[in-house]
């Protein structure tokens, strides 16, 4: 493998790196006036990176993936599919940001640059085939995320969110690194392939602790129970476009990265990781469902909803089969659409002075003042609850189907039972919107970009989304096939 091929395989990341550095310098000279231009250019860079991704995926003999830099990085269908979702989610969180920040007069050109940095990190995370590459990508993403969380630095809640995220994130990185060092010590390599070949048969205590610590660090990054405690605070405190970003792109990256580590590096130790993933999945589903019931803040509620959904995603992974990973990738695509749609709806919750509203009471009777937004909200909530015929149901159906096919009937049964509990609070929001006395707090905003995005995402998760199955399912299957 010569250098030119390696560079070609990482060209999406190279393009994003060059683009973000140029934009960083432009932001230094252009100042706050250039924020809008830089946002558009950043979105264009992400779009160009997605095109490069497709060009690479259409190379001949790409089917089994192409290894770059002597096995530190791989470009394959799994990574490409995840990256495509990541770039898409990043572009959407760029599109909705300027107007949100403008209300407070705080929009700065560093926002799109940080999103680009995070996107580079996430791209490296999902393509890493070595623990060290993985860690570099993870930290690049996390460090950008810490700054993004505290982007409104005059706001106490935003600064607090950033600080909390940083301290707990550093702790998780420490656990992950300790785990990596133990796994390295017992297997003699940081490469996933070599770890997978070495850690077979009965697992001794040392490497077992390493595996457990690595999984704990990863569980923190995907905000799975019992490492979820930062999620509600960070999601509530961070500016809403940043929360929408956190709930979509980094989640895709972290889940995909976890899947690759588990299947490729710990693939010989199914008994060890499967117990952990099953526990984490069930705990996330149950806690995400129960803890959300009492929430009065919509962003906090959606944070628990995302914990809940991570549990469903992990059920597909827990199956440990190709079908399971394919179902997980499919559900990820639907999840990103649902969660971005729900957060853009939250962005539209503004009072007559343009101040953002976050309480559930302010939603009361929304159907009478803004029927369109109310209908979209209802579609996203029903879809997140997994009620047929909405598209969220199909995603859930696929992961449960995979779990049953892998002989994990009890897991599927408990998961389905807990999703009924979760349906309660989703439907409660619909009830508040449609049947409560109008509070009239939320006024019409007439934001074309946001309304257009809501419409497109709502159509995607509506029953019309089923028409997209023939085009998404083969991608998910190809992605899963790349791991096995």
């Amino acid at each position, binding site marked *: 493998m010569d*250098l030119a091929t390696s560079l070609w395989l990482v060209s999406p990341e190279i393009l994003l790196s060059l683009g973000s550095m140029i934009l*960083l310098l432009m932001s230094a000279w252009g100042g706050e006036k250039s924020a809008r231009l830089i946002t558009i250019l950043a979105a264009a860079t992400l779009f160009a990176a997605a095109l490069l991704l497709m060009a690479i995926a259409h190379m001949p003999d790409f089917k089994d993936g192409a290894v770059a830099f002597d096995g530190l990085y791989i470009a394959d269908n799994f990574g490409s599919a995840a990256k495509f979702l990541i770039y898409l989610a990043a572009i959407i969180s760029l599109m909705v940001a300027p107007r949100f920040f403008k209300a407070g007069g705080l929009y700065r050109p560093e926002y799109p640059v940080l999103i680009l940095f995070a996107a580079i990190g996430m791209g490296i995370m999902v393509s890493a085939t070595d623990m060290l590459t993985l860690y570099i990508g993870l930290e690049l993403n996390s460090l950008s995320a810490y700054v993004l969380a505290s982007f409104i630095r005059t706001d106490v809640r935003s600064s607090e969110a950033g600080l909390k995220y940083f301290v707990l994130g550093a702790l998780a990185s420490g656990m992950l690194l300790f785990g990596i060092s133990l796994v390295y010590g017992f297997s003699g390599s940081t490469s996933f392939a070599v770890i997978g070949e070495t850690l077979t048969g009965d697992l001794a205590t040392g490497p077992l602790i390493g595996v457990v610590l690595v999984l704990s660090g990863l569980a923190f990054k995907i905000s799975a129970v019992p490492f979820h405690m930062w999620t509600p605070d960070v999601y509530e405190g961070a500016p809403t476009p940043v929360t929408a970003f956190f709930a979509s792109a980094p989640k895709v990256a972290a889940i995909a990265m976890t899947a690759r580590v588990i299947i490729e590096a710990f693939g010989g130790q199914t008994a060890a990781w499967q117990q952990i993933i099953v526990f984490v999945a069930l705990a996330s589903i149950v806690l995400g469902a129960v803890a959300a019931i009492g929430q009065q803040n919509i962003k906090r509620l959606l944070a628990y909803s995302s914990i809940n959904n991570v549990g469903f995603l992990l059920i597909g992974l827990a199956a440990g089969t190709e079908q399971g990973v394919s179902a997980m990738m499919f559900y990820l695509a639907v999840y990103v659409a649902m969660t971005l749609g729900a957060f853009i709806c939250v962005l539209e919750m503004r009072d007559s002075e343009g101040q953002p509203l976050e309480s559930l009471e302010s939603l009361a009777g929304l159907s009478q003042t803004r029927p369109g937004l109310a209908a979209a909200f209802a579609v996203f909530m029903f879809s997140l609850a997994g009620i047929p015929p909405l598209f969220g149901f199909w995603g859930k159906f696929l992961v449960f189907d995979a779990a049953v096919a892998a002989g994990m009937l009890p897991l599927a049964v408990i998961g389905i039972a807990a999703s009924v509990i979760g349906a309660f609070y989703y439907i409660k929001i619909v009830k508040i919107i449609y049947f409560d006395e109008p509070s009239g707090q939320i006024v019409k905003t007439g934001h074309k970009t946001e309304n257009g995005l809501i419409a497109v995402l709502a159509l995607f998760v509506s029953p019309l989304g089923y028409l997209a199955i023939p085009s998404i399912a083969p991608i998910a299957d190809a992605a899963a096939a790349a791991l096995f």
Partner: protein
Amino acid sequence: MVDLSEYAPILLFLFVAAGLSAAFVFLPMGVSRLTGTHNPSAEKLSEYECGFPAFEDSRSQFDVRFYLVAILFIIFDLEAAFLFPWAVSLDQTAWLGWGSMMVFLFILTVGFIYEWKMGALEWE
């Protein structure tokens, strides 16, 4: 079974080091008391030059610019720490190693230009 006697030299070294460093601390103190130069005054005991008061409420106001300087220092300190092993192994890593380091330095320079332009290096 690990043969602990292998570690005897390091144990001995630690004992010697602890003994010697304790002697360096306590001997001058003892000698100064015996020879009569021990004559503390408020002025002598107060901190001087760039020192902060040693005993006071730790929740004092602290200029945030110190953190900025500290972070910048760490970045460029690490850069130097990177450059040393790179320089001595350049005969093995050849042009690829040289190119990689230049990319790294380029990225660092972009960050440096940004912080300069944004006024992070100006104290006032």
